[in-house]
């Protein structure tokens, strides 16, 4: 509602007709605006109103115009669907607007001017409009309308149009008005009404041209048409009101009807809407919530229908929930159940049962049957208890009553004549069972006794007297008969016993005789057998004795033979021994001779070995000498390969010799070795050169070499074994060693040189080394040869 109003204002502005602003919400202001508009003579107001009433703010005017017509139709139906006050108001507004539009359309310009107001405020003053709608001609006079409009305005101002309930009342009337006129509101009616009201305006009202809202504002005369057109469909009902208000006053007599109609319509509408609400609330949950919350009695109604629906769907659902009540007595556990300190238990309600007793809670069967008995018994009991409260509680149990026939009887009588005295005369005496020993009879007696006691308890024990007396006599008869039978039986038993004993004695005698006879027979047989056995044993003994004697003779003979043999052997051995001793004395010398011969042969072989070895060593010595001569010969260097090969041959796989030869540099025996003299000679040359380079600095150039050469000439010569590491002293030492013939030491000294000096002395060093190697090897071989010669002598 609120949104629609501002729209109205905007529309108005668009037309440049009025600046309504937000204040338009105020109904009074609106009214004023309308008034002013009316005064200006423009017919826009209806149109604007129509727009304002439109439920949807955006749709263009024409649409809105159409809407109302539909709404008017729909209203009846929609009313049933929507019960909310808001929707009501909406509809009301639309209807009213449409009505006003129609009015405007129908009425002339002058007429229209007043109606708009009606149409604007109809929401508040719906009654009038409804009336007008209903009559198709508004009967009220214009002043009336004005006044009402102005007066009524405040409550439902279109602008403020709050969702408050006040709006509600209005809806029904329009609905009521619309419903009857449902055909009327349509365009067809519209023309009719105008024509009725004012023929002059009829031409103007035609809705068809006015359908375009834009054109409506511009021409003054045309203004009404747009309104009419806008409301075209719906307006028709309205026009009558405006038209009638000014012109059709004669219809006023129907005013009474108006009120009645209004009330009826209202109630009808409310009912309808309520019904619709209920129906819709059954369909839509949201609406259901709303309806039940805000509409009075809504919840109950909805609930009722829901319940009905539920019942219809599940007819058995409720039966399950609440099973049919069983009219059996309530089972109550008495207060005193179990052990109690109380001796007395006051009577209680019949319906209350003792849990200990048989009842529905124990078994489902026989409850009813027992009921009667139980209650009866209880009745009696209760009464007797009233008399005798001191009786123990156990006596009250029904089953036990039979054990106390006396009291039971008393009770029975008490039942028969309440409050009456006891009557012991009527009782029947019990059977005395003390004399009876037979258990069967005793049981019988007990049974009879119980019967008697029962009878005693019954109301008329005397009736059974005769029967019980016969029973008693029969019982005694039975007893006596049983006794007699017992005695007869005992007699027969004794007789039989005697007979049996005599027969048994006879039998025993016979048996004894037979036994003695058999014994005699067996004894004789035994004697015979014994004799036979003894004889056979004797025979056996005899034979065995004979055999043993023979065996002993044989054994003695054997022993004699053995002794003879042993003696013979001894004799033979003695003879042999003597012969042997004689023989050994002569042949012993022969053996000694053989041993000496063997020794001799051994010695001879050993000597041959020694001779061989000697020969070998000699050959080795020779070869060695050859080698030595070869490398020491002055015509060196000369290869001495052959000599060495010969030496190796002679050595014949001697390890030491082979190793020594291997140690010699092959160059030595291939090209020969320089002699010591040659070495000395060469050293002289080498020493000169070395001295030249003795003063060279490291990495010396031409100048350094030249300087060293020149300066070396100036150096003093040393003599003997000079000390120091310088080249000069090393050279002098080597010289002296060489002079002494110690090539080994000389080579060691020269090996200490470094730099250019070493480079210059390299060749000489190599030569010296070769010689030394050969010398060493030859010495080793010589030592080996000597060793071998020594070894030969030992074995």
């Amino acid at each position, binding site marked *: 509602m609120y949104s629609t109003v501002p729209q109205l204002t905007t529309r108005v502005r668009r037309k440049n007709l009025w600046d309504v602003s937000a204040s338009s919400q105020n109904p009074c202001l609106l009214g004023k605006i309308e008034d002013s508009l009316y005064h200006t003579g423009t017919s826009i107001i209806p149109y604007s109103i129509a727009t304002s009433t439109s439920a949807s703010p955006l749709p263009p005017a024409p649409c809105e115009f159409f809407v109302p017509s539909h709404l008017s139709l729909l209203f009846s139906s929609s009313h049933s669907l929507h019960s909310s006050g808001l929707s009501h108001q909406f509809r009301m507004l639309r209807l009213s607007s449409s009505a006003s539009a129609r009015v405007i359309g129908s009425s002339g310009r002058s007429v229209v001017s007043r109606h708009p107001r009606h149409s604007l405020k109809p929401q508040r003053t719906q009654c009038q409009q409804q009336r007008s709608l209903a009559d198709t001609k508004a009967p009220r006079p214009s002043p009336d309308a004005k006044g009402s409009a102005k007066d009524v305005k405040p409550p439902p101002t279109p602008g403020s149009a709050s969702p408050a309930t006040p709006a509600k009342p209005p809806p029904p009337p329009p609905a009521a008005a619309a419903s009857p006129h449902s055909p009327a509101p349509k365009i067809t009616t519209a023309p009719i009404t105008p024509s009725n009201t004012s023929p002059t305006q009829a031409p103007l009202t035609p809705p068809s041209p006015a359908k375009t809202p834009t054109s409506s504002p511009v021409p003054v005369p045309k203004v009404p048409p747009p309104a009419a057109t806008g409301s075209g469909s719906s307006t028709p009902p309205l026009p009558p009101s405006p038209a009638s208000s000014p012109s059709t006053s004669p219809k006023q007599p129907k005013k009474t009807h108006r009120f009645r109609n209004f009330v009826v319509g209202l109630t009808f509408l409310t009912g309808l809407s309520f019904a619709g609400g209920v129906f819709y609330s059954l369909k839509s949950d949201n609406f259901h919530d709303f309806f039940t919350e805000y509409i009075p009695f809504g919840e109950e109604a909805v609930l009722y229908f829901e319940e009905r629906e539920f019942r219809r769907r599940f007819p058995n659902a409720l039966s399950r929930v609440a099973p049919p009540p069983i009219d059996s007595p309530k089972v109550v556990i008495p207060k005193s159940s179990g052990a109690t300190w109380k001796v007395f238990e006051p009577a209680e309600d019949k319906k209350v049962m003792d849990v200990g007793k048989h009842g529905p809670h124990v078994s489902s069967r026989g409850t009813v049957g027992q009921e009667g008995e139980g209650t009866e018994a209880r009745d009696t009991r209760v009464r007797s208890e009233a008399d005798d409260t001191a009786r123990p509680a156990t006596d009250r149990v029904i089953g036990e009553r039979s054990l106390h026939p006396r009291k039971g009887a008393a009770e029975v009588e008490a039942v028969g004549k309440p409050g009456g005295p006891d009557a012991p005369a009527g009782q029947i005496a019990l059977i005395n069972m003390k004399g009876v020993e037979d258990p069967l009879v005793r049981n019988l007696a007990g049974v009879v006794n119980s019967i008697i006691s029962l009878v005693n308890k019954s109301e008329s024990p005397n009736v059974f007297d005769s029967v019980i007396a016969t029973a008693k006599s029969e019982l005694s008869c039975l007893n006596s008969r049983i006794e007699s039978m017992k005695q007869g039986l005992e007699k027969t038993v004794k007789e039989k016993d005697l007979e049996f004993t005599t027969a048994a004695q006879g039998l025993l005698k016979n048996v004894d005789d037979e036994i003695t006879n058999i014994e005699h027979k067996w004894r004789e047989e035994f004697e015979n057998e014994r004799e036979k056995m003894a004889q056979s044993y004797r025979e056996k003994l005899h034979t065995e004795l004979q055999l043993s004697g023979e065996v002993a003779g044989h054994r003695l003979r054997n022993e004699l033979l053995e002794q003879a043999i042993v003696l013979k052997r001894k004799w033979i051995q003695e003879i042999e021994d003597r012969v042997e001793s004689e023989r050994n004395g002569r042949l012993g010398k022969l053996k000694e001779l053989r041993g000496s011969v063997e020794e001799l042969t051994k010695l001879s072989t050993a000597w041959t070995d020694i001779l061989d070895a000697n020969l070998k060593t000699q050959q080795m010595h020779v070869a060695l000498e050859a080698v030595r001569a070869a490398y020491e010969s002055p015509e060196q260097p000369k290869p001495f390969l052959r000599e060495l090969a010969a030496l190796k041959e002679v050595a014949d796989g001697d390890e030491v010799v082979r190793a020594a030869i291997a140690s010699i540099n092959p160059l030595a025996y291939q090209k020969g070795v320089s002699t010591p003299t040659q070495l000395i000679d060469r050293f002289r040359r080498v020493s000169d*050169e070395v001295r030249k380079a003795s003063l060279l600095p490291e*990495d*010396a150039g031409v100048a350094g070499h030249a300087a060293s050469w020149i300066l070396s000439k100036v150096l003093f010569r040393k003599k003997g074994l000079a000390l120091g590491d310088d080249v000069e002293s090393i050279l002098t030492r080597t010289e002296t060693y060489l002079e002494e013939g110690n090539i080994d030491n000389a080579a060691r000294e020269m090996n*200490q040189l470094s730099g250019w000096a070493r480079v210059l002395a390299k060749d000489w060093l190599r030569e010296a080394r070769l010689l030394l190697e050969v010398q060493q090897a030859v010495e080793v071989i010589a030592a080996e040869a000597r060793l071998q010669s020594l070894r030969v002598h030992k074995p």
Partner: protein
Amino acid sequence: MTASTTQLVKRKPESEGLLNEKWDHCLANLLVKSTLGAGFGIIFSVLLFKRRAWPAWVGVGFGAGRGYAECDREFKGAAGGVSRAVGERLRRD
């Protein structure tokens, strides 16, 4: 081949003559270089410097310098890397 190589090896100068040989080479080289330089100097002096004396001396100087440098290089590298350190190592062995 082998025979020729062995012969070459045999003819290889003895170690004590190494330095002398180098000296011979150096001197010969020096002489040749200096004469060459002198010749170039003389030619230059005749052609360019109107028989002045100094170009000839300059040429001789160049030649001698060249010879000297070559000789020096030969001597310096000739130790065969047997420097003091190597000598010491050898001595230790």
